[in-house]
């Protein structure tokens, strides 16, 4: 490992103090904001008790960005927002302006860089996503490519507010779910469908056997021996293809080009507004990986969005709309097939059955 000689090694300093990066108007009005107003899908204003104003201009990013991309943003910030900017949890960039007259020229310059301004209000928010084939070893699908294909198609929904309320879409490339895709209006989830291959030499030499056995949610990885050494065997019928054993043990690779793909989930939310936070529920059990543009995935998400836009009341999230019309109607209006895979048979699954005679006949 390279050592830099003569330099005192600094450790455990923790995150940089955010106070060093706050716009003076934000510093002055910290905790004293009175209200905000959404002026367009690309910008909003926050007004303080003293009447001070800070304008936020929101711009979409592809999350995976070059140093040059960041320097483009820095140049815009220097020109229009005194050098102050921030990011959102959904990978948007926000320029913080104290001069209203700077909004228009900033938006013009954002347009010249071919970046989308939007994402505020009743829009499809920027899709949060994982690393995929670009930078992860457990991915069942790419992430950036599917998201790029989706956002190209949904672009108008990001830059123009034209939905009943906000729609949050998330993508995770395997069941590890780096990000909260399990509570999204629409979630696209990379899945495997074939049990892991067991490579005994690697299992014996590289894997800790007890943690490999413990990694299985359905307890179908069992102790075994190989050449007299502790190993594992797999009861394939009970495998739910989660890939957790591979995360623990490199001797059980699960990726398989013919059987990997994505599933689509709907109706989750994290906000407490009106209804309680909720998991997303299975809509489409499997769509094959179809790079570079995953047309069937794009079509399925569009189908959900179109049905939602047509059927939901103003202010209803996707899950609230489905609760109101009922799941049978959701499958009817989307045309998705309801299969035995949609009926939950895992832990807590019993709670999802219909214990009533309340049916929209």
């Amino acid at each position, binding site marked *: 490992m390279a050592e830099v000689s003569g330099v005192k090694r600094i450790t455990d*300093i923790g995150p940089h103090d955010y106070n060093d990066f706050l716009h003076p108007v934000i510093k002055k009005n910290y905790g004293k904001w009175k209200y*905000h107003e959404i002026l367009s899908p690309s910008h909003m204003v926050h007004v303080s008790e003293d009447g001070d104003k800070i304008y936020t201009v929101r711009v979409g990013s592809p999350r995976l960005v070059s140093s040059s991309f960041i320097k483009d943003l820095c140049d815009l910030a220097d020109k229009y927002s005194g050098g102050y900017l921030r990011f959102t949890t959904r*990978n948007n960039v926000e320029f913080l302006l104290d001069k209203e007259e700077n909004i228009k020229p900033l938006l013009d310059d954002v347009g010249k860089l071919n970046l989308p301004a939007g994402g505020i209000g009743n829009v499809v928010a920027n899709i949060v996503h994982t690393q995929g084939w*670009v930078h992860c070893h457990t991915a069942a699908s790419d992430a950036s490519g599917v998201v*790029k*294909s989706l956002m190209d198609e949904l672009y108008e929904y990001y830059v123009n507010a034209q939905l009943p309320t906000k729609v949050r879409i998330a993508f995770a490339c395997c069941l590890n779910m780096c990000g909260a895709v399990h509570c999204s209006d629409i979630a696209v989830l990379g899945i495997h469908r074939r049990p892991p291959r067991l490579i005994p030499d690697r299992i014996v030499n590289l894997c800790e056997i007890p943690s490999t056995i413990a990694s299985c949610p359905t307890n179908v990885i069992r102790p075994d021996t190989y050449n007299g050494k502790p190993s594992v065997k797999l009861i394939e019928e009970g495998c739910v293809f989660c890939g957790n054993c591979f995360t623990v043990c490199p001797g059980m*690779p699960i990726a398989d080009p013919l059987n990997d793909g994505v599933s689509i989930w709907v109706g989750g939310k994290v906000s407490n507004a009106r209804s309680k936070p909720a998991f997303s529920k299975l809509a489409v059990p499997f769509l094959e990986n179809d790079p570079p543009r995953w047309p069937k995935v794009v079509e399925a998400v569009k189908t959900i969005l179109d049905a939602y836009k047509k059927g939901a009341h103003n202010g209803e999230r996707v899950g609230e709309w489905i609760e109101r019309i009922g799941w049978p109607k959701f499958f009817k209006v989307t045309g998705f097939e309801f299969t035995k895979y949609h009926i939950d048979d895992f832990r807590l699954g019993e709670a999802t059955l219909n214990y009533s005679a309340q049916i929209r006949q």
Partner: protein
Amino acid sequence: MSKKHKTPLLDELKKGKWPSFVNEIERAAEKSEMTDDLLGQVEQSYEEKVVHWKHGGMVGVKGYGSGIVGRFSDLPEKYPGIKEFHTVRINQPSGFFYTSDVLRSIVDIGEKHASSLFNFHGSTGDVQLLGAKTAELETIFQEYTKLGFDLGGSGSALRTPSCCVGKARCEFANYDAMHACNSITQAFQDEMHRPIFNYKFKFKFSACGNDCTASIARADLSVIGTWKDSIRIDQEAVKDYAKKFDLHKYVTDKCPTKCMSYNAEEGLKIDDSNCSKCMHCINTMPKALRPGTKGGATILIGSKAPMVSGPRLSMVLVPFYDIEEDAKNDYEWFKDLISKIWEFWDEYGVNRERIGELIQRVGIGNFIESIGLEPLPEMVASPRGNPFVLYEEYVEAGGEQG
């Protein structure tokens, strides 16, 4: 354009209106030659529909067990530039606030010593530099600490805490989420950099029930803003909203506890004792309504993604925590609660068991008893509906206790 590789499939993803990650990888490759091989490998993944990164591999910097995630190509001879292409997690400032100066310095280090490719930000919150060679890690680390930035968490450690924008730019904030996040991160540097836990542990701080950090879905400990007193009402502004839309249809009828009513003469009336702080009315009429002034937080525990025993949401642990008061005391009460939770997890948890799974396994009653909290009706949606109760005592004939 890649200099070395033909990438017809990826080139398709340079088309369309949304900014393209392929363009970004290419721009990074203009600054860092090594990144050109990433285009080749990802193109091959697109052809073969399979990933080409090897499993794991331990790398790091001296004295730290986390913050760097090892990443090795499984085709190192074909793509030597990304033979080692590790992730460096850099702890973000609270609220993701930056100046252009510091951002330029952050990405300059990536240009000089690594791939020039970043995530702003990773799902947990860190700035991620994707693609550093093992030999450069120590230099990169020292460059970042000189700039005043430290590494984030990875592996079985405290993961980088994150928060919403809070009081910096949101009138909904019920407590100072950025201050709390920064202070707690500073307090537990050792737990973040040196993994000693059973598995990962995440904190997320959201200053109201809108939960912009999605803490209730993915934080082992979710700290969500709430308030004790009455919603502040500007009746004149309410009237203005009533001119714009049907207040009954879009506000009062949607209140989950039906604690509010409106008519033109009396204005908006709220029975705050029955308000569940869901935020709907405030979200809909931000110019007219604000949370009360006695802000605090609800502490919830146990949410996680599916591995191993299925996804979980966080459940209520402390209905109201006076976090602003505790902040004056450097969050002593909260840190004590955290220590008790971690002690319990250390004592009874098994390898790769998240706290939510442990609580489910041992029973919530046993858990709260062990960390010194009382059972409260706020913790449940309803009391139990089955009679299989583990009564802990019975009486013998003659009055003795069994």
